[in-house]
């Protein structure tokens, strides 16, 4: 039986390896969608770009190097059971795992302290990595999403609060406008996350949670699912192509995550994931046995 200190060390070791893995191997859903998009592509320049992308992923996996140099500010979305033994240690575990993975992989140093404007050189800083919590009653498991978003696909992020009179039509306009202004430069084909809620922060968090959902999944609400499909087809019809240099399609998909709203407001936010959508999901049980959901057949 491991004591708490040993458990903590073991989890840091595993999480650090998991972070490295996410930096050099794309999740299965993203890989297969890119394959599908490249096969449907008819534009010659776009085909050349897809070819470079697959070649890059192959070498990155072989050399175990981050497939994109911008390994982002790490984000973790945690669903932690109230009875998970390391619940109180989890924040420090994720912080230390990030530091360890940064040294060992290596990852890029992406934490610049604001106002003092210096790079910590450790990839961790005040409030980074960012950790978002949900505590689950009656569970002893910890489900963790690891996400590495570079600056390029973070830049299109935007949130606003619409008046109900602007309706979902206003949501459509808000999303589409962002695609042709900032989306082009955010490394399409994109995964587009749309968050609907009351205010900027609820919508923004929903839009990021939307990027955690698998490519090809649909919102359970019929109308939301309809909006996803309409936006996906609509943005595809614009034909941004890989790198925004034109092509048959623009996106890997559009995911909507929604929560209830104040009667007087519609909060809406857009977040984009680039083609190199480095997201991983891992679940630990109370004995730190793990299951990786996003990268089938991979051992840490």
């Amino acid at each position, binding site marked *: 039986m491991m004591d708490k200190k040993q458990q903590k060390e073991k989890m840091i070791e595993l999480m650090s390896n998991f972070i490295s893995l996410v930096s*050099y191997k794309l999740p299965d859903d993203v890989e297969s969608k890119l394959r599908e998009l490249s096969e449907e592509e008819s534009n010659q*320049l776009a085909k*050349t*770009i897809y070819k*470079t*992308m697959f*070649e*890059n992923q192959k*070498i*990155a996996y072989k*050399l175990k*190097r*981050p*497939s*994109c*140099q*911008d*390994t982002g500010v790490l984000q973790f979305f945690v669903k932690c059971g109230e009875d998970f033994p390391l619940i109180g240690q989890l924040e420090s575990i994720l912080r230390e795992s990030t530091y360890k993975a940064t040294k060992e992989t*290596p*990852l*890029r*140093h*992406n934490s*610049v302290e604001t106002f003092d404007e210096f*790079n910590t*050189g450790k990839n961790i800083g005040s409030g980074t990595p960012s950790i978002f919590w949900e505590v689950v009653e009656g569970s002893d498991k910890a489900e963790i999403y690891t996400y590495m978003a570079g*600056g*390029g696909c973070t*830049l299109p992020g935007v949130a606003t609060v619409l008046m*109900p009179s602007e*309706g*979902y*039509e206003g*949501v*459509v*306009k808000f999303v*589409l406008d962002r*695609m*042709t202004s900032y989306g*082009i*430069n955010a*490394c399409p084909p994109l995964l587009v996350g749309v968050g609907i809620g009351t205010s900027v922060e609820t919508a923004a968090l929903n839009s990021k949670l939307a990027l955690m959902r698998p490519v090809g999944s649909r919102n359970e609400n019929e*109308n939301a699912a*309809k909006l996803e499909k*309409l*936006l996906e087809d*609509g*943005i595809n*019809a*614009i*034909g*941004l192509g*890989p*790198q*925004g*240099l*034109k092509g048959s399609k623009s996106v890997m998909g559009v995911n909507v995550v929604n929560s209830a709203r104040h009667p007087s407001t519609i909060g809406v936010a857009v977040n984009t994931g*680039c*083609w*190199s959508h480095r997201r991983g999901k891992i679940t630990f049980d109370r004995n730190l046995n793990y299951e990786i959901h996003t990268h089938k057949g991979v051992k840490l």
Partner: protein
Amino acid sequence: MNKKILTTPITDEDLKNIRIGDIIYLNGTLVTCRDVAHRRVVEGGIPLPIDLKGKAIFHAGPIVRETEDKKYEIVSIGPTTSMRMEKFEKQFIEKTGVKLIIGKGGMGKRTEEGCKTYKALHLVFPAGNAVYAATKVERIKDVYWTDLGMPESLWVCEVKEFGPLIVSIDAEGNNLFEQNKAEFNRKKEEQYEYISKQVGFIK
């Protein structure tokens, strides 16, 4: 089709027949140069510690590993959003004589003017392909301004057949992204008309 390869030092003449949408490759010296370095040169009037005349810069922040013999090795290197340098690029080209600006996504009016006036190109390296790009870097010759941290330092790289590089602004000032954008915006309006009729969920 033959691979079109440019070798530094690059002259005005070399760029004459290159047009937007062309794919080229680079041999020679490529220096990483991004946000703060541009600001220092243009706003701060601080001269670069390296002569860029006829050479190429890369809007990029690499991951670099120090090897045992105190040398450096590129682990991953890929382009960052070029538009962030738009504010400075024209003057940067004027001050340095740089010929190729490699990055990600398009650049704007001022860079168009800079490319046209001082004969330079803006090119796109397909972003996110950082290990592929690293295999085209033969060695790091030098590094300057390390006070800016790993991503922002000036890494002087010797590259071989670095590419594919897609010409986004040519030396005549034609701009591929601007042309595409006009088409994208037209299609976007059509899609908005079509979709907005189907989302009247508030009744």
